[in-house]
């Protein structure tokens, strides 16, 4: 089943809304960091700027993902979503590692500084609320559309929320006289973010490596095993391209059948799969003569017993 145009427009609308929200937060934090003498707030301002860049990159990738296949990219541009997620997650990991090393070095080398003005908490509170909205909105749409880009944007929003929370704690802590508190919190937060981003990165890598879920293969087998003249299934491969799954099947049918009959069987298989598995967009079927099975020493019973 194709995702409706209405849903596709919604996915772009989400990113546009988040882009304007992040621009607003960046400007707000920039103004406050100028007046409030807060190192944490300066760091968070840069983080908001990074979010603006991330949203622009995702908008570009979402536009490209919907382009029709052409001679250069015969399977379409769908995988750009996984690629963008992977690259953004890698950059986040590099930033987190740098941030943690920097916080640790600062913690052990610099002396106590003057605390930031408490008013610096205000933009962070606004950022916290905005981050929660962004996270809920993008993860809801991302799950419905199975879009890895939107799920990564949701993760970035969550990271933003965590950073805002950390800055608030740091400002309060330093004003209460606990001068190294913000560094300790930064290290803890860094570890949490690293864990979440690493999981998202791993998922993006799996999709880029054409990971095939067992559940798809099992469901397809169950759908087609009763179609007449199918003697066995040699192989089922699936891979994910931008919310669409492509399935490649290798099917045994009697070798003495004419091609016309074989093509009828192929059409029945495709109809059955596309009707009952709406997440599969394309099916390609290779027919193998059943008599070849004995030469390959292939055990048919084992296939249907799995």
């Amino acid at each position, binding site marked *: 089943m194709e995702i409706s145009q209405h849903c596709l427009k919604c996915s772009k609308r989400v990113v546009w809304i988040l882009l304007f929200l992040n621009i607003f937060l960046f400007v707000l934090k920039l103004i406050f960091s100028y007046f409030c003498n807060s190192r944490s707030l300066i760091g968070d301002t840069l983080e908001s700027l990074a979010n603006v860049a991330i949203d622009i990159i995702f908008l570009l990738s979402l536009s490209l993902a919907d382009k029709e296949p052409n001679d250069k990219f015969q399977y379409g541009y769908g*995988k*750009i979503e996984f690629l963008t997620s992977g690259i953004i997650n890698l950059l986040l990991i*590099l930033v987190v590692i740098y941030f943690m090393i920097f916080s640790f070095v600062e913690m052990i080398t610099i002396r106590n500084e003057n605390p930031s003005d408490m008013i610096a908490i205000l933009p962070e509170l606004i950022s916290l609320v905005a981050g929660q909205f962004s996270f809920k909105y993008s993860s809801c749409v991302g799950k419905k559309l199975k879009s890895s880009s939107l799920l990564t944007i949701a993760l970035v929003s969550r990271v933003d929320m965590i950073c805002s929370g950390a800055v608030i704690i740091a400002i309060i802590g330093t004003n209460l006289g606990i001068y190294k508190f913000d560094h300790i919190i930064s290290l803890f937060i860094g570890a949490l973010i690293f864990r979440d981003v690493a999981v998202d990165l791993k998922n993006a890598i799996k999709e880029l490596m054409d990971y095939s879920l067992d559940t798809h293969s099992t469901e397809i087998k169950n759908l087609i095993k009763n179609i007449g003249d199918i003697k066995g299934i040699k192989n089922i*491969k699936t891979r994910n391209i931008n919310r669409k799954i492509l399935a490649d099947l290798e099917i045994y049918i009697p070798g003495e*059948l*004419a*091609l*016309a009959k074989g093509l009828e069987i192929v059409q029945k298989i495709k109809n059955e799969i596309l009707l009952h598995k709406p997440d599969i967009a394309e099916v390609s079927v290779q027919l193998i*003569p059943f008599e*070849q099975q004995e030469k390959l020493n292939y055990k048919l019973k084992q296939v249907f017993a799995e």
Partner: protein
Amino acid sequence: MFKIKSENRCTACVRKVSWIGLWYSFVLSLLKGFVGIISGSHALMGSALYSFHDVVSSIAILIGLKIFTKPTTKNYPYGYGNAEYIVSVFISIIILTATIFLMYNSIKLIFIDHKDVTLHWSVVLAAAFSIFFNILLYKFNKCAFKHLNSPAILTHAKHLMADAISSMAVILVILGTSLGIHSLDPLAAIFETVHLIYLSGEILIHGCTGLMDKAIDKKKIVSIKDILADVSGIEKIKTRQVGRNINVELFISFPADKTLNEIHAISNKITETIKNNMKYIGNVNVIYV
């Protein structure tokens, strides 16, 4: 020095050379970095960054060699060929990030800090050492690429040559500073970073397009059509590069009254012909239309 008899021998050779290259580049990056920091030479620090790239890309090749030779599994039925592209993309991003950092510091040195750098003769030694060994390793890796067609190995070879060139630039800087042109050092560093950004960008684009299932170039598609000149009914040819191998899908219409046995024999012959006449062919699927 190495007698190449089969692909397994090639892979073993590349693995050996990659380990040697890794340790050599690691030592060289430490040496250049240390001498660069002590002497204050940004150009040499930039050159140390090139060697650091080589360390990272050697690690990438070793990981790639381990992963992409793995057989297909249930969860990865198309194989692990794309691991090479993933590794290339990640290396280029790490390198780009470090390079932008160095560029920023070099620009700051020229326009804000206005520091004159006086360089030491040890810089020349470090640079000369780097030129010699990088060119040697470059030749090994070019040979390995010819035999294994691995994008990661080609990437690494380009890095090694870039490292050698950057070390030549360092020697020019020494000559320049001895003639009193002190701003040559940060300028050379900026030039190196621009070149590194270009190299890394090239590798990033190559890796990204590979991961997006880019089709093979038109020349190779024409070769496939020439090989299959005697086969009628070819409606469409779809290809995609998966690591060093090419996956081909042929959409062929056969006479409807032919039996599957007859057609299957023909398509086996087609597959065999393509694999015998073209290198690095992975899967060939013949789809009957």
